[in-house]
């Protein structure tokens, strides 16, 4: 059982900004109808060359970082396409947490819905952290979710913010759909008010008469 309150392990540095979800999960891995089998696709074109041979100098292919479960990366990580496959794939490749100064908005929510911890630190802290873990001897990190700190091998601590909601989602793994379904009576009451006020907002697509000229 994963202990979601404390994440410990090897952190890999990937100091690139705007790493988009097309690169995190290239499109040829998006043909599934379930969530399985995505580990291979994760960061695929950065990990493997056109002949599918590992690219030796890519960080995750280096022995010291091959077991990494934490990724320390540049700003706006996960920008671009909404594909949640990027989150599923990172988890299937073994990642429990990402540390960056900012994230693409959709990616951010996708991660929360899957209990992938996203830590936000200041850009200068990311730089310091990257420098420290770039030394294989110091590549171990601990993320204490309860205390909201990242602790380096040398004992340095970086505090981070987490809203009560995010913290709850990580620690308790809240099932949002089930939680919201309990509010269905409230939703239905809203619908009646909303359609009474805005009848034009009610669409009934199956009964719409759409003709092709």
């Amino acid at each position, binding site marked *: 059982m994963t202990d979601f309150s404390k994440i410990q392990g090897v952190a890999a540095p990937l100091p690139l900004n705007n790493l988009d979800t097309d*690169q995190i999960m290239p499109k040829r891995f998006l043909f599934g109808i379930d969530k399985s089998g995505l580990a291979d696709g994760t960061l695929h074109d950065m990990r493997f060359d056109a002949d599918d041979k590992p690219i030796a100098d890519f960080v995750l292919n280096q022995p010291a970082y091959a077991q990494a479960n934490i990724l320390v990366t540049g700003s706006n990580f996960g920008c671009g396409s909404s594909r949640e496959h990027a989150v599923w794939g990172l988890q299937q490749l073994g990642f429990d947490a990402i540390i960056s100064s900012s994230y693409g*908005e959709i990616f951010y929510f996708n991660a929360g*819905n899957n209990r992938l911890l996203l830590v936000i630190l200041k850009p200068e802290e990311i730089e310091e952290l990257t420098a420290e873990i770039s030394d294989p001897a110091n590549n171990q990190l601990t993320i204490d979710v309860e205390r909201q700190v990242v602790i380096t091998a040398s004992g340095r601590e970086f505090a981070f913010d987490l*809203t009560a909601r995010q913290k709850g989602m990580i620690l308790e793994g809240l099932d949002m759909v089930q939680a919201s379904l309990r509010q*269905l009576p409230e939703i239905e009451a809203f619908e009646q008010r909303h359609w009474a006020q805005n009848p034009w907002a009610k669409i009934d697509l199956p009964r719409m008469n759409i003709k092709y000229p």
Partner: protein
Amino acid sequence: MSRTLYQKLVDSHTVARIDAQHVMLYADFHIMNEYTSPQAFGGLDEKGILTHRPEQNMGVVDHVNPTHPDPIGKRTIRIEAPAKQAANFVRNCSKHGIRLFDINDPIQGIEHVVVPEIGCVRPGMVILCGDSHTVSYGALGALGFGIGTSEVEHVLATQTLIYRVCKDMRITVNGDLKPGVSSKDVIMHIVARIGAQGARGYAIEFAGTTFATLSTEARLTISNMAVESGARAALLAPDEETFKYVREHVRDMSPADLDKAVEVWKTLRSDDDAQFDLEYTFDAEDIEPYVTWGTSPDQAIAISETIPTDDKLNDDDCKALDYIGLKAGMPVEGTPINRAFIGSCTNARIEDLRLAASVIKGRKVAAGVRAMIIPGSGLVRAQAEREGLAQQFIDAGFEWRQPGCSMCLAMNDDYLEPGERCASSTNRNFEGRQGRGGLTHLMSPIMVAAAAIAGRIVDVRKEF
């Protein structure tokens, strides 16, 4: 208290407040495609529940389908995995009673092209879709934005989303666009100036005299690509042009009902003294045809400019230049191309095709260039054929194909080979987006048409 248009749309769709930052937001309409929805339906199956409001949901196959010029009604997906994905989508939609535009439906096309043209985007609505370019609908004063697959499941189950409310940004552009400059250039200029992260966490409202002169289709291009600056939403207050567009496209409202609705839609604007957290102002006079030189949509310059010099480039820029095979300080103008692509939810509407055709004027695609035009939808395709545009493209040597996302993201069998360089009317020049090792230069459809004919990237104003 005075409010922005964005705040009004959020307020009018708030079912419940969750905490200081989050609300439960009601979705008037929800669109799904074949590749970001399967696991959401899977989640519902596991819980044994059905869609709460199937009639407010829609499915369309657009990403994986081939665009072979097969006759309408005769398209097949010849590759196994995408064929299975499409078949699975048919099963899911039929089980849930959701209207699906399958590949042989004549209305089928790119989701964000189809939805406005069938009249399902109306000012004041909230529209969600498991696709980041859902921001497009802001062009009509509707709050649209992309969501992930877990959220698709949540919307299917409850017709709502747990949503973090954004900050407000206003981008004002005043003045008239110069000849040869299109709405694509406006948004590329803005993205280049504010950066790929410039609007992260914000809902943008576009304002100013420039937008007032643009058609709804041109506005859709702008709101569509606003997501490339990280924006969560991109709104334009609806005006007479919007009402005219909606009247022409809505199928299920009487003229009297439309009149009543327009009275409500006229109130959809930011209050005069509404506060924005961040403001930018641009001058339309300064905007020229744009072209990207890198692998992020903000790595772009006006066609008359040169790529920034070394001292102005950061590590990401250098990596991008390395990939794209260009050098600091050089122009992009004159770069030879092998491929040209007019398509995508940014620029494959009828007006885009009319503009592209106006550049071609009897000329031919340059030798050695493979040029493709993928109409945004079945309706666009039919219209272009009726207007004779399709024949002009074919005569000029363009491939005229069936609707879909096609080489915008190359999930089908349209893609760039490694090293092929493409002038593209799409929205993302990410590494490998159009095919592994492919080199993408984003630009407006008339710039793509001009490049196809010249065989190199040119300034459409100079040579056409």
